[in-house]
């Protein structure tokens, strides 16, 4: 109310906020992150174009991780079908599908809800396979320890320049399908150069899920990250609070 003369007129007030519009998502992501760290789980947000080979990378990870006795888990997002989750289950990775309908990305709340349906606390490395898309998933924090972007050699070397936000967010770029390089004009040096112009700390591993090339390096990268995050030697499953199964909706 106008307090100058008490006339009862309304007032126009400016409210300064300077607040991130995704603050709500970021809060949910912090919650997920606390859960993962408390339970000793390394959570990886795996992104890339449709068909980049995200699921094939995870299948190769399961084969290599078996030797390390890692317990893996995953949620796999697609607009429709649970095909990828079925493939991961067959590869020995307990998985659930997140069917997003028309949504082009995962957000922290969707990931949180999906965790109710899977024993993620009993895993060492938990993959969140995002919707195939190089645009939208980049801006949503899910609570992961790291972002990994899968880029296949058939997509071209200039992808980082075309999608700078995604490649800036990448803690690691996995260059997939490297066994195809002899059949293509793909130039790895050009990709390294493009990435260095959008990401100040570029990190690349070249990999072929088919031949197994680079998989050891990828596994070693995950292992280093587990050490850096203080997750090695922790007893998984000792989360501070345990999630009840999701109620039927």
């Amino acid at each position: 109310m106008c307090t100058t003369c008490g006339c009862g007129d309304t007032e126009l007030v400016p409210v300064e906020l300077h607040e991130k519009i995704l603050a709500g998502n970021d809060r949910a992501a912090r919650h997920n992150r606390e859960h993962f760290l408390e339970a000793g789980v390394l959570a990886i947000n795996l992104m890339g174009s449709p068909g980049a080979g995200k699921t094939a990378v995870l299948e190769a990870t399961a084969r290599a991780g078996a030797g390390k006795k890692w317990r893996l888990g995953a949620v796999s997002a697609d607009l429709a079908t649970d095909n990828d989750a079925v493939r991961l289950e067959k590869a020995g990775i307990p998985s659930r599908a997140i069917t997003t309908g028309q949504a082009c990305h995962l957000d922290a709340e969707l990931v949180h809800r999906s965790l109710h349906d899977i024993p993620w606390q009993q895993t060492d490395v938990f993959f969140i396979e995002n919707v195939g898309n190089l645009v939208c998933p980049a801006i949503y924090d899910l609570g992961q320890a790291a972002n990994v972007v899968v880029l296949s050699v058939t997509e071209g070397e200039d992808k980082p320049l075309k999608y700078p936000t995604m490649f800036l967010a990448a803690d690691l770029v996995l260059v997939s399908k490297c066994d195809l390089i002899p059949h293509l004009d793909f130039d790895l040096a050009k990709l390294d150069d493009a990435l260095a112009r959008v990401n100040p700390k570029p990190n690349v591993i070249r990999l072929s899920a088919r031949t197994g090339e680079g998989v050891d390096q990828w596994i070693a990268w995950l292992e280093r990250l587990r050490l850096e995050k203080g997750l090695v030697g922790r007893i998984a499953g000792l989360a501070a609070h345990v999630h009840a199964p999701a109620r039927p909706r």
Partner: protein
Amino acid sequence: MHEYSLVEALISRVEAEAKKRQALKVHALSVRVGELAGVDPELFQTAYDTFRAGTLCAETTLTVKRIPASWSCPRCRAAIPRGEVLRCTACDVPARLDDGADALTLDGIEMEVP
């Protein structure tokens, strides 16, 4: 088209603030979009114009300010020119993104209160 879900988050936040302050009307919103925020300012405006119907923001003007991406050396502060490798050649350290270039920020709301 994540711009629609961003607009949804924006309007929910504005409605919560308006409710807290018992606002009668929301007149204006100002938003900053960083060049590397992963948001297309024009699509964001279109999504806002579509989504605001029937909400408290139905007659609220939205001002979108674009923040260009700029990089500099965290040590010597030298600017890294656009399109260059993101590393300071003099100090041999990774460049740092200047503030705001990767953020989508609700700066302020102008509202009418009793």
